[in-house]
């Protein structure tokens, strides 16, 4: 455990009666790309700001390389940060902006020039030295901000939704650049976003925030395949939840009664309480669909309500018993697609070992 580069220990942040962050504990390895993902108001920025030193935790500790950061003021932490809003110094040119941290550190002039050139090359903005920020696009400004945050080789780079003001196409382009820069520099990055696609694309690991705490930490694949809570299951990827009754529990697995009366056994059960019901997570693309009445091996019967073509996928909305609906996703060119029509009876099945149930 002591091998972690950044250790966040039980930090808490209280604003009067509001608890913005509660008991967040997290270890980050050197060179890791860690993303804080979560809905608005879940405490991602507050956690990041405590790392930056703009907020002081009500309780807990943050250590970098084994030493606490909390007694170091922001300007001495030597941390880089890119903000959600455009924060280039308006009266300075691009070159002067990137040179600013080096001038503060009183580096010799020749070093400043060389490092500024390198940093601007890193973000592919060579030749923009003499531009004023106001004359640059949002994407360019954020790249300059990135160069300014990296020019002094900080061990840690914080990014608080740096791309949220950009349009989708530009966002993807800069995500790619950020990934390349991460690989080229090896800097440890803490990245905040509420866009799951962005998190999945960029991160080594993702910490999913919900109401001021971390629900789960893991790689994108882990979070998708093995969600620890119903919140994570619903937040990462598309999901169907159906209400089931818990018939019996065998260790960490359960037998559940599905709408329509059939039961499935051997479903991994995540217990959040002693309730007799559980929400069953079914990913749309992991449900098998057959035309016709349900047989003995099928879990659910239903009728097709709607079919939506989405390019590489087609979503089939199926009415199931108890007035519920399930969305089933079929890839483009799936042999069964031609035979599907609304009002057609269908049978649904899934592998119980690969789904999850969350006891309520």
């Amino acid at each position, binding site marked *: 455990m002591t091998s972690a580069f950044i250790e966040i220990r039980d930090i808490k942040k209280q604003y009067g009666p509001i608890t913005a962050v509660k008991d967040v504990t997290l270890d980050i390895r050197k060179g890791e790309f860690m993303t804080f993902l979560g809905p608005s108001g879940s405490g991602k920025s507050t956690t990041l700001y405590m790392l930056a030193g703009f907020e002081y935790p009500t309780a807990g500790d943050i250590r970098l390389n084994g030493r606490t950061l909390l007694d170091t003021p922001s300007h001495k932490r030597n941390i880089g940060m890119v903000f959600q809003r455009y924060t280039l110094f308006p*009266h300075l040119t691009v070159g002067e902006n990137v040179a600013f*941290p080096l001038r503060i550190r009183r580096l010799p002039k020749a070093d400043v020039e060389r490092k500024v050139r390198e940093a601007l090359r890193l973000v592919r903005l060579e030749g923009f030295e003499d531009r004023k920020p106001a004359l640059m696009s949002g994407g360019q400004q954020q790249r300059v901000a990135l160069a300014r945050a990296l020019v002094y080789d900080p061990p840690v780079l914080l990014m608080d939704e740096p791309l949220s003001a950009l349009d989708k196409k530009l966002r993807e382009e800069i995500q790619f650049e950020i990934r390349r820069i991460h690989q080229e520099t090896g800097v440890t990055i803490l990245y905040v976003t509420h866009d799951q696609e962005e998190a999945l694309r960029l991160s080594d690991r993702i910490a999913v925030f919900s109401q001021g705490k971390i629900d789960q930490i893991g790689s994108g694949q882990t979070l998708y395949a093995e969600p620890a809570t119903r919140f994570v299951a619903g937040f990462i990827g598309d999901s169907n939840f159906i209400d089931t009754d818990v018939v019996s529990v065998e260790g960490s697995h359960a037998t559940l009664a599905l709408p329509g009366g059939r039961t499935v056994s051997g479903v991994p059960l995540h217990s959040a309480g002693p309730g007799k019901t559980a929400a069953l997570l079914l990913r749309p693309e992991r449900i098998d669909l057959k035309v016709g009445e349900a047989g003995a091996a099928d879990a659910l019967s239903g009728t097709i309500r709607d079919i939506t073509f989405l390019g590489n996928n087609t979503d089939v909305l199926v009415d199931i018993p108890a007035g519920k609906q399930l969305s089933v996703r079929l890839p483009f060119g799936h042999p069964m697609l031609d035979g599907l029509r609304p009002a057609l009876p269908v049978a649904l099945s899934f592998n119980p070992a690969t789904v999850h149930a969350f006891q309520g």
Partner: protein
Amino acid sequence: MLLDFDRLGPWKWVLITITTLVCLFLLLPIVFIAALSFGSSQWLIFPPPGWTTRWYGELFADPRWLQSAFTSLKIAAIVTVLSVGIGFLAALSLNRGSFAGREVLRALFLTPMILPVVVLAVALYAFFLRIGLNGTTLGFIIAHLLIALPFSIISIGSALEGFDKSIEDAAILCGASPWEARLRVTVPAISHGLFGAAVFSFLASWDEVVLAIFMASPTLQTLPVKIWATLRQDLTPVIAAASTLLILFTMLLMIIAALVRRGSKQGTKP
């Protein structure tokens, strides 16, 4: 647009007439004074029977006029520096702070603007009498600072309002201490607000007369006080000359301020 100038029809001429009259109303006294200052009659007759620069000669030959102009300039300059400095700090705390009573404090800072100047003058006079500040440069400075500060706080405050605090935070993470960040990043970024504060503070002191009359002594007089005092003794066109120069100087400052404001707007907006 509802009130499109080109579609007003005959109303257009009414509007033009009213605008012209208002402009004349505002400008005529100035033109009148300027004309009198070059008039050859020593009884301030209008229209002047002839033209001369004699009164300007007399003005510049009299050391008391120069002395009072210099006093005005000195007091206004010191008031400007103090007003911008204190105004910056006050605006910063009103803008950024989250302490109790912030709005009350803001209102308090702005009261000198709405308080009748005479009331302020009488109060200050009575107070300064006790602590011996009447007739001193310091007394002048404090009195004028009181009326200049609201202008500074408003001008700098609105500039800070339009300045994203994250930019200062970015400078701090870049390694600048909080005050270094404010001086190297915030101050240049809100320089138009600081400049506006300086111009308004200077003018607030430069052509202020009511407080100055209460603060003045026979040996310490600002230009407006000198004009007023001279006016009471004899009605010489030298007063018109002094007034004209005073107005010219004020106008010059306003023009510079307008130019700077336009320059800074072009700098920030592509």
